[in-house]
């Protein structure tokens, strides 16, 4: 396996880590209004307060890593989805400061709670649309984006946007099932089912829509021998779906969240099948966009040393705050 492929997997890993980790805390933001002011909301907020900052660092690694490993792709994708990126960033500003500000300013807590929800929704929706915009293809000429600044706005990207919001809501609801109790947990159970149905429905819709876009998606999914491998993904989705609904029905606590992570992993695998080896579909391959070998090696040394450490101390931080969040802190 060559270094460029390794780097493609590293970036994919960072994006996946971001999507599932910030996914659940953005999802909690999206679902926040459903929870009662006071105890329920405080539990929901407290369950992510110690970890959201680390979760969002994966987004910086995704962006920074893309610049570092595939600068050409970074230089094309960001201008191509410019308004979405700006909306996402501003959404993250609002919801990020809301964690602190809602405690500092009880008189305006309702406002910061709203900012938390609106910012989370804006970030989730625009992330989904960015993905859709990338999959539907962007115009490239002479190492640069050559389309106009609203090319990304299509029915397909709206679909991927809504799908991402639903998926994050599923992660958020199942996380809260795990971390909260009493009223908040009951509400999380109630929300998880529709979120799961919406997620799976939209996942199916996007999956069926994608092969009919311009591009080579049809061939990558439905022609021999790809189909033998690719077909495993939807099959596994069906299996996980069964266990997810069974878990929700039996009121399992941790399983629904872990299964939802599995669904996202399969979504990521599907994305990989659709895109590989392109990083800007049908325009730029990972090899076109890759930095020279010396840059790849220099960074790979850093990744090999730091990422295991990061996973260990991130895991430790989650471990410290394990268990039910409670109403007045961790016990």
């Amino acid at each position, binding site marked *: 396996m060559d270094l460029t492929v390794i780097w493609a997997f590293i970036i994919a890993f960072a994006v996946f880590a971001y999507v599932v980790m910030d996914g659940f805390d953005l999802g909690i933001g999206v679902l926040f209004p459903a929870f009662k002011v006071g105890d329920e909301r405080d539990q929901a907020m407290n369950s992510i307060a110690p970890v959201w900052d680390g979760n969002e660092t994966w987004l910086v690694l995704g962006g920074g890593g893309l610049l570092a490993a595939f600068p050409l792709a*970074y230089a*094309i994708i960001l201008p191509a989805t*410019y*308004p979405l990126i700006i909306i996402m960033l501003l959404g993250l500003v609002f919801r990020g400061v809301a964690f602190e500000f809602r405690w500092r300013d009880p008189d305006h807590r309702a406002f910061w709670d709203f900012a938390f929800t609106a910012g989370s929704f804006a970030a989730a929706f625009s992330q989904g649309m960015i993905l859709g915009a990338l999959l539907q293809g962007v115009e490239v000429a002479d190492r640069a*984006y050559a389309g106009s600044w609203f090319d990304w706005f299509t029915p397909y990207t709206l679909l991927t946007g809504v799908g991402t919001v639903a998926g994050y809501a599923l992660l958020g609801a199942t996380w809260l099932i795990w971390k909260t109790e009493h009223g908040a947990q009951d509400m999380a159970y109630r929300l998880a089912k529709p979120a799961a149905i919406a997620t799976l429905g939209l996942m199916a819709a996007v999956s069926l829509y994608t092969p009919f876009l311009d591009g080579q998606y049809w061939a990558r999914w439905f022609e021999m021998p790809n189909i033998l491998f690719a077909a495993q993904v939807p099959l596994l989705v069906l299996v996980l779906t069964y266990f997810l609904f069974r878990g929700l029905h039996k009121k399992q606590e941790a399983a629904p969240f872990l299964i939802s992570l599995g669904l996202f992993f399969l979504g990521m695998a599907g994305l990989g099948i659709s895109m590989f080896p392109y990083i800007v579909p049908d325009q730029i391959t990972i090899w076109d966009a890759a930095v020279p070998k010396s840059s790849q090696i220099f960074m790979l040394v850093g990744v090999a040393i730091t990422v295991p450490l990061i996973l260990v101390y991130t895991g430790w931080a989650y471990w410290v705050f394990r268990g039910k969040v409670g109403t007045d802190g*961790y016990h």
Partner: protein
Amino acid sequence: MFEQFDAILLARIQFAFTISFHFIFPAFSIGLASYLAVLEGLWLKTGKQVYMDLFKYWIKIFAVTFAMGVVSGIVMSYQFGTNWSVFSDKAGPVIGPLMAYEVLTAFFLEAGFLGVMLFGMNKVGKKLHFTATLMVAIGTFISAFWILSVNSWMQTPTGHLIAANGQFVPGDSWWDIVFNPSFPYRLFHTLMATYLTTAFVVGGVGAWHLLKDKTNPHARKMFSMAMWMAALVAPVQIFAGDLHGLNTLEHQPAKVMAMEGHYDSHPDGAPLILFGIPNSEDKRVDYKIEIPKLSSLILKHDLNAPLDGLDTIPDADEPPVGLVFWSFRIMVGIGFAMLGMGLWSLFARFRKKLYDWNWLHRSAILMGPAGFVAVIAGWITTEVGRQPYTIYGLLRTTDSASPLAAPAVAASLIAFIIVYFFVFGAGTWYIMRLMSKVPQDGEKGVKSTETGPVRTAGIAPGPAQKDPPTFKPNSAE
């Protein structure tokens, strides 16, 4: 709308705006993280409650500052691609890995341990908690290391090659890229600036509370610590700034010419222009007050040494003189004012009047935000002084921008301005409110009961924080 504007100018304003706002938070949080580590370390060592009280007082301010630093920092990691995509494509192979190292070695470290630092004191024991605080402090330092290496490489690029496709690619050694000529000076100068910024904020808050109550032990302690920092670091900083200037003279002479306002060459000794109004149209400084030959003495250590002026630089390669000239003077002026405060405090300390002289305290309050002004002014000096290049001498700013239409950049710029002033204005207000509270015995930590009844409060108030005396350094873990 906005079609008449130049998309590149708008993109430059946007970058300057977002990074200046962002820079304010790390300028404070780097220094404050170290201060918190010192406070917790002293508490562990001496067992004195005043240190833990101060730790808990400042950690609430740190939490708000850090949150704003994080969200404004995420914006920065995308600004390169949204508005400067050509620069990103060309410079990516060199600066990208350095920024990736920043994320891997600094951001994760800070974020990973921040949760424990803010909320975990009762969950992990005092030593692990101190470790978490140290990791956050070290993380802020490592972050500064990498990002200033990137910035320094853009100022004094070394160690790279230029590939056939126009990209800057690493040469034989990454060492030459990371430790480019201006990096050590810039790193030291910037870190000292963050420590001074924090010291003056802490000193200002201490002074504020001293004016109301000269006996408050917390206010006395923070004011004293801050004034020690001012007295010790301000002279070091002025010396470091001078070295940084000499380094700039060697590698970016045009920037120094703009800082000095030297439109003309001076073959036998250049004057130091204290004040004046740069007039770039006629290429002279109007109404100037100058000291003959002093500039040559400072920059060349020789009264009669010749110094080139901007007349030796083609017009198209000159930085804008007015902005650089003024921002440099603001920075230097504040630096000397800080030195003055430090010396004054030493004198007061010597006379045993440190906590008694109202005018010392009033001045310290006035100087409280001075560090931020100096940091931004210094940043403008170095960044505008690099113009008209993004990578000095090699890539022009006009050849770096994204292929975006002016309305797109203008719309996003307006959105950033509105959101930043609103959100960070609110954050600054909350910080000022926290600072206006008198530090107490048994100060509460982050998200404590002060915001409401215990049951609806945040995470921090575990048993120990509700009852601080149970958590002392010599109690069992």
